[in-house]
């Protein structure tokens, strides 16, 4: 039963292996002569200014919240998408109701200025 997923696990294993190899090989093979300049965080040659953590502004997070909720709507569409012919008109009307409600929500959020980027 799980043999169906063998390729998936294989892919995961190979990806992990490649990533680990890259780190370990560079640290093992490369010569280590740390000097203060080398240890500075690299900022394309100029000296670093300000805190390392880049503060995101508040206006982005509303889009992130809308992304999560519309992502769920998409997840509800996947199974329907793969079998709508079999569901026939009944399934079509059902999905029509689901999508109209969420379309009105999208228009509502859009007109209320939730998707604006400029401050």
């Amino acid at each position, binding site marked *: 039963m799980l043999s169906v997923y063998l390729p998936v696990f294989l892919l995961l294993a190979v990806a992990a292996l490649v990533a680990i190899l890259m780190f370990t090989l560079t640290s093992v093979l490369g010569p280590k002569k740390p000097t203060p300049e080398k240890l500075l965080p690299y900022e394309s040659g100029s000296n670093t200014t300000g805190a390392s953590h880049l503060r995101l502004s*508040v206006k982005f*997070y*509303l889009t992130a*919240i809308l992304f*999560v*909720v519309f*992502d*769920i709507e998409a*997840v*509800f569409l996947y199974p329907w998408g793969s079998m709508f012919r079999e569901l026939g008109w009944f399934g079509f009307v059902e999905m029509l109701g689901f999508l109209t409600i969420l379309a009105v929500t999208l228009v509502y959020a859009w007109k209320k200025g939730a998707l604006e980027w400029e401050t």
Partner: protein
Amino acid sequence: MEVGLGEYLALATILFGTGAIGFLIRQNMLIQLMCIELMLNSVNVALVATNRFYPDNHAGQIFSFFVIAVAAAEAAVGLAIVIAFYRLKKTVETDEADLLRH
């Protein structure tokens, strides 16, 4: 070693307990929200496991399908409230919320 429904339910209970303990102990709102996600995930484990042992219908899997969807919507609203709280009080520690405790 034979793994039956009991082991899955025990795992679900332990995960639920961990989430509940985390929710009661921690004061950081974000971590409390994550603990609620832990508890909802443990509910999903119990539902899916039971459905595997009564496979004549998909009741358990449909239920956990909806739990995942609603939990994500709940997290969205919860984080909107956390942001509103942070903008006012510049912190996400729950013990700051003692304005109403009298």
